[in-house]
Every structure is written in structure tokens, then in C-alpha cells.
């Protein structure tokens, strides 16, 4: 299964979602291999691999695991984040559908490494079908004794873990790790301040690790081929294969598993067979809607890994690539994004709640042809005031794309604010003042 190191998650094997097929192709062997190592050796292997979280923040996974306390005094939990609600992201769903056992095996290995007692896979409520598919895989694994009490009998280990699915019910914010935990605990999914970090105080105040579905599903591959070999795949500082979800104005949208560092143009023009109607590209969002966009004229040579994207002032995020052609109305796109974050803000922090509301309001005004040139600076300043001043990173997630679009596509916004407005003809003095009340509709 792991011979082809350019495809470590979505293998070209028919019916791999079935437990028998998975086993026949070497499934659950990586867990057996891990059991021959000590938990610390497993963590070190993941550290060596250079694996970084696939949920958006790119945090080194092995390092995160070392934050978990050792010992058995307290129960320990793993929350596997399958909320997948960032617009433009649709990759974890592929794992639920096509390779659910690799996720289960990943949970077993991670669980063994950290001494986890129970894992909860949090799956967004809209994914009814994928919850059923994942549950079927879990049921089969339980039946085979791969999970739960019979692990001793099957694997000859004293380690055992329970794995459950927790179904969400429609709230983007629950993908944020502290919100996700509050949601699992049965409260309204409000995020909370960090520290304390989940490893100190997580689910039910016990040590907890939160990792994305794709992150955990990658772990069996690392154990199978070895951390050092994994580290050689793709970009050096952000190695491995990534599930890129490509959508928008593209001929062949879909999820593509490719090494990090793959050229963006290679993904768009080769793998996805180019832009719809052969148009030029106006903008590309590289990693889900909260990441600042790239201009179409700067994508040549851009490599898809975190360190390379940072040089362009953006990030890999969830690997959700959204392509927009030259006919796209950037201002309307920005409004739609601002609307989303305003809708999803939980309202706890004033800068996020009010700031997101403001950004949407100003953008609505601009789209309605009632904006002024000052509104563009206002948008940037509202975004700056949100960034870094909130409990969770939803604030940043809202601020980044708005500021990114306004600054990188300023001319598009300027067209909106100058097009439909003229100065009151006879009043030159007022006309110079550029404020909203001195402007009237063109007709």
C-alpha cells in the first residue's frame, strides 16, 4: 500500500474502504510494527518525519504529541477533527469514503504513542453519508477486535482504546479546537482562551490532543516507510503528500494527492486540466477561504508548501485551492467571504463580532455602489483591529482574506467606489472632500 510514496492516503486500490481489502493490502501492519516500538519511539518517528498538521495551522505533529503528560494517572483523550467547514475544503471526506481504515489505524498508532484512552472523531453534521461510512468501518474494526477490549487477544498488547464518532450539527466554529472540545462536552461550542492548552486541560479537563483527520491518517504511512523516508518526500520543511482540494473555475475539480512543494501551476494546468473556458486567472486562494489570495499574475513558480507560500504572504491552510477566472467579481467574492465569517462568529469577543459585522456592512455598501475610496482604508483598518485581538483564530480567518483582497486587488475595489458615484457638479469645494455625504448617484 505504501510502496508508491507519492500516494500515501488515497491509494489506487479498489474497495479499499472494506476491511478485508485493507488488510489484504497490508492494512493494520503499521500498527503491529508500532507495537514493537516503545511509545516514545513512535513519537520520535513522527517527529523525524517532519509531519505538520493538516488542519490549517501546520503545527509539527510529533512536537504536539510530546506536550501530552506521560503516565496513567489521568484518562487521556484524542479528538480527531473532521469538522471540515472551511469554505473550499473537502478533503477529509475522501478519507472517510475511500480509506477509513487508515484513519482508524492512525488513531490506534497515535493512541498507543500518547497513551490515549478514548478517541472521538468529530464529523460535521452535514456529512450524514460519510458518518455512516465511517461508522461502518469502525463497526467492522470493532468486530475484528482491532479496537476495544479484544485488542489484547488480537494484537497481544496491553494497550487498548475506544473510538467513537461525534456528529456535529452545523457550526463552522466547532472546527476550532477548543470549540470542538466544548461541543463534545455537550455545551454550546464556544472557544476558550489558550493557555491552558488541550494537552494540559482538554476534554473534561483531562489531557487531550486535537489533530486533523488527514494528519492522523498519515501516521500509518510514516510508521510503514519510516520517518526518515517520509521526510524526503516533497518540500523539506513541510514534507509529505497533501490532499489538495481544487475548486472554482477549473476543468477538473476534485481532490488530488500530491507531494508538498508541487507547483501551483502544475496542479491547475496539468492535474486539473486548466481553467474553465481557457480564461486567464484572476485570483487563487491557496488554502481555504481564510487564506489571503494570490493574484493571477503572481502564481508562476509558486510552490504549494507552507514555507514557500509564506513568502507570498499567505499560507497552505487546509490545502483547499479556489481558482477564479478573469471574469470574477472580486468585490462580490470578498463580500461573500465576509458574510460567511460574520455569520459564523460566535460573538464572544467584541473585535470579532463587531469587526466582522462592520466588514460585511462596508462591503455591502461598496457593492451597492454607495462606497467611497475611504471605505477601502477603513476595511483594512477594521481587519487590522480584529487580527490578534480575539479569543480564537476565527477573527484572523476573517481579517486575512478581506485585507488580502482589498490590498491585492485594490483597482477592482476602486472601480466600484468611483464608477457609480460622481461629485456634485457645481460644488467644487465639497467635491474635493471625498466624504460619503458629498457624493450622489451617477444616475
Amino acid at each position: 500500500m505504501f510502496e508508491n510514496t507519492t500516494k500515501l492516503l488515497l491509494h489506487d486500490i479498489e474497495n479499499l474502504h472494506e476491511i478485508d481489502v485493507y488488510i489484504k493490502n497490508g492494512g493494520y501492519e503499521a500498527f503491529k510494527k508500532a507495537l514493537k516500538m516503545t511509545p516514545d519511539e513512535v513519537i520520535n518517528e513522527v517527529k523525524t518525519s517532519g509531519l505538520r498538521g493538516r488542519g490549517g495551522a501546520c503545527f509539527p505533529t510529533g512536537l504536539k504529541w510530546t506536550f501530552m503528560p506521560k503516565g496513567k494517572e489521568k484518562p487521556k483523550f484524542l479528538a480527531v477533527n473532521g469538522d471540515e467547514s472551511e469554505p473550499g475544503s473537502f478533503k477529509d471526506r475522501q478519507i472517510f469514503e475511500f480509506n477509513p481504515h487508515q484513519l482508524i489505524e492512525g488513531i490506534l498508532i497515535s493512541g498507543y504513542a500518547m497513551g490515549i484512552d478514548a478517541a472521538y472523531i468529530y464529523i460535521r453534521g452535514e456529512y450524514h453519508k460519510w458518518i455512516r461510512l465511517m461508522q461502518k468501518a469502525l463497526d467492522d474494526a470493532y468486530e475484528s477486535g482491532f479496537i476495544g477490549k479484544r485488542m489484547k487477544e488480537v494484537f497481544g498488547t496491553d494497550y487498548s482504546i475506544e473510538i467513537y464518532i461525534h456528529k456535529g450539527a452545523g457550526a463552522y466554529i466547532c472546527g476550532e479546537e477548543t470549540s470542538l472540545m466544548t461541543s463534545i462536552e455537550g455545551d454550546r461550542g464556544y472557544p476558550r482562551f489558550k493557555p491552558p492548552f488541550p494537552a494540559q486541560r482538554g476534554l473534561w479537563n483531562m489531557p487531550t490532543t486535537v489533530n486533523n483527520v488527514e494528519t492522523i491518517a498519515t501516521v500509518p504511512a510514516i510508521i510503514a516507510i519510516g520517518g526518515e523516508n517520509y521526510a524526503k518526500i516533497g518540500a523539506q520543511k513541510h514534507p509529505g503528500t497533501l490532499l489538495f482540494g481544487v475548486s472554482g473555475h477549473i476543468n477538473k475539480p476534485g481532490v488530488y494527492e500530491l507531494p508538498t512543494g508541487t507547483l501551483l501551476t502544475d496542479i491547475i494546468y496539468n492535474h486539473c486540466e486548466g481553467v474553465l473556458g481557457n480564461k486567464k486567472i484572476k485570483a487563487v486562494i491557496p488554502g481555504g477561504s481564510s487564506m489571503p489570495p494570490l493574484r493571477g499574475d503572481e502564481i508562476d513558480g509558486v510552490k504549494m508548501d507552507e514555507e514557500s507560500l509564506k513568502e507570498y504572504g499567505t499560507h497552505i491552510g487546509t490545502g483547499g485551492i479556489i481558482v477564479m477566472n478573469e471574469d470574477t467579481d472580486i468585490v462580490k467574492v470578498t463580500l461573500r467571504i465576509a458574510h460567511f465569517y460574520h455569520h459564523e462568529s460566535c460573538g464572544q469577543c467584541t473585535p470579532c463580532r463587531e469587526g466582522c459585522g462592520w466588514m460585511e456592512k462596508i462591503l455591502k455598501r461598496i457593492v451597492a455602489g454607495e462606497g467611497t475610496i475611504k471605505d477601502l482604508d477603513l476595511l483594512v483598518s477594521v481587519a487590522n483591529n480584529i487580527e490578534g485581538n480575539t479569543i480564537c483564530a476565527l477573527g484572523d480567518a476573517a481579517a486575512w482574506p478581506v485585507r488580502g483582497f482589498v490590498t491585492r486587488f485594490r483597482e477592482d475595489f476602486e472601480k466600484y467606489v468611483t464608477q457609480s458615484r460622481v461629485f456634485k457638479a457645481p460644488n467644487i469645494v465639497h467635491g474635493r472632500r471625498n466624504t460619503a455625504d458629498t457624493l450622489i448617484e451617477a444616475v
Partner: protein
Amino acid sequence: MEDIQEIRFSEEELKEIEMVKSRYPSSKSAIMHVLWMAQKKFGWLSNDVKEYVAKILDLPESHVHGVASFYTMYFKKPMGKYHIQVCTNISCMLRGGEEIYEHVSEKLGIGHNQRTEDGLFSLEEVECMGACGGAPMVAINEDFYENIDIVKVDELISSFRNKI
């Protein structure tokens, strides 16, 4: 045609709730699952239903109200037999999602979170459903329909109309 239905889970369902409670250190964690079960069985989460859930899980009623109102997928009022969710978020918007929403709204004569008089359809403009590669898309009840257009959405609506 709103049947007056007794608000009560069957023995089987109560057993399922016990099983779900046992998955967590605290039975409060079962609330989302039980609200899903209640919505499936009773159609939507009326005050009576929420009170019943509170009683079963031994939680304050205010807590159940709070949780139910936090999540968009729990219905706060009766919805149609076929609940049509049209995604208009960015990837769908780029491929005509907004036009599909407008079309369905006009065709059925209902807006966001409203239902038709015969109770057959309801409409919701939803945020990204995690199916952007199949944009534009709609979900009807629990099923996703991807790569759709106005013609296909019309066909879907007719096929559900003919089912009754």
C-alpha cells in the same frame, strides 16, 4: 397535516441513548446525538421536545435550549418533508450557486428557512457543505447532489413531488 404525536422515544431508542451516554465520561455529551434522534423522530425541536430531552438527560431545560439554538442544523420550526439546502458559498457561487438558490426560491415561492404551504418543501441557503469540488451543489435532506444546474434541480424537485 401535522399529526399530534406523542413525544416519547421507544424502548429501543432509549437503549440507544444509554449506549451513547456510555461513550462519554459525562452523560451531558450525549445531548447532540439525542437532539439528532429527536429531530429525526419528531420533525423539529419544539419546546415540548426540548423539555423531553432535558428530562431524559437530566439537564436543565435552559441548557437544552441553549445547545439546540447554537447549531444551524437543528430545526427551530417545522420544515418541509424535503428540506432543500442550496450552497452559495464561494466555490459554489463561482459556479452559479446563487442563481440556483434564486431559482428554487422563486419556483417554490419561499425564502430562506421557509416552507411551502403544503409542507412538502423547505429551503435553506447554506454555507459551504464541504463538497466544493462538486460545485454547485444542493443537499436534500441527508443526500448531496453535486455538479447540478437549474435543469437538474428542477428535475429533482419534480421527482420528489411525484414521490407522494
